């Protein structure tokens, strides 16, 4: 059985090709999805890639959130479809209210691009089960508006429910509250992540291959389902 993972392209998406490549390297079949198309082509999971959809106009992800494809993604994510939002995709998930909180301008105002160390905090979600608990990984990070914010009550809830799935180590690159790099929804099928695991899936182009388990996790989950 071939697992089919859809990768959405919005106008201004940049990392859709790398996301599709990561899906392929992980052993699944990548399916290109278009922002104007409501039809998700019966994919088994969806990746919302990084980039600057709609030029980041209004707010990052604010316009993409109302695109036809997102109507279907939101509806099916609420019914359990695994969805991973990376960087701009994370912003879209927050704007869609599939994930709580918001991503704001980096506290130092600079765009940042570096290889970032992370600790995987929760290995029970659809996208992190192939990691070891507490595993430390290094993957590229590149953002201008990556500071995760939410009110104290929401932050406490995320912590208490184990929904902080990855945390920045050594350096907080953007002012994210409590060093949060990624979170999940309550059911664990929707995950948002600011760093870019899809750029760390093979030695030729990545600093490591430690991003790959995000993509193999979903395969394992779906094959065992």
């Amino acid at each position: 059985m071939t697992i089919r993972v859809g990768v959405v392209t919005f106008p201004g998406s940049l990392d859709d090709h790398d996301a599709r490549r990561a899906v392929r390297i992980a052993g699944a079949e990548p399916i290109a999805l278009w922002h104007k198309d409501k039809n998700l082509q019966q994919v088994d999971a969806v990746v919302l890639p990084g980039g600057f959809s709609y030029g980041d106009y209004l707010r990052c992800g604010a316009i993409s959130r109302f695109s036809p494809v997102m109507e279907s993604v939101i509806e099916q994510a609420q019914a359990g479809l695994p969805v991973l939002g990376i960087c701009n995709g994370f912003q879209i998930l927050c704007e869609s209210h599939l994930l709580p909180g918001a991503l704001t301008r980096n506290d130092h105002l600079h765009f940042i691009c570096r290889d970032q160390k992370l600790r995987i905090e929760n290995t029970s979600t659809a996208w992190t089960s192939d990691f070891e608990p507490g595993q430390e990984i290094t993957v590229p990070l590149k953002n201008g508006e990556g500071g995760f914010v939410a009110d104290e009550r929401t932050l406490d809830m995320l912590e208490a429910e184990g929904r902080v799935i990855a945390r920045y180590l050594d350096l907080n690159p953007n002012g994210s509250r409590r060093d949060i790099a990624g979170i999940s929804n309550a059911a664990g099928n929707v995950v948002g992540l600011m760093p870019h695991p899809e750029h760390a899936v093979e030695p030729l182009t990545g600093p490591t291959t430690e991003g790959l388990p995000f993509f193999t996790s979903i395969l394992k989950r779906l094959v065992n389902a």
Partner: protein
Amino acid sequence: MARVVVDVMLKPEILDPQGQAVQRALPRLGFDGITDVRQGKRFELELEGPVDEAALARIREAAESFLANTVIEDFTVRVEAEGEK
């Protein structure tokens, strides 16, 4: 034609690094005595019909769901008087 203005500001508890950068630049340019700067967005909406309660209710809905992200931002809606700029 009527104009409705929607102002969107980051909530007070949300860090505004852009506003802080502006504030830090002001004294260097000789503008003293400004203790805080918050940067926001202003939307000017031109309406086809009259600005009645129903029209304003729709605009509030648009502001709440789209123009502002109420997780981090507050908004105000006001009608701009004739001739006002």
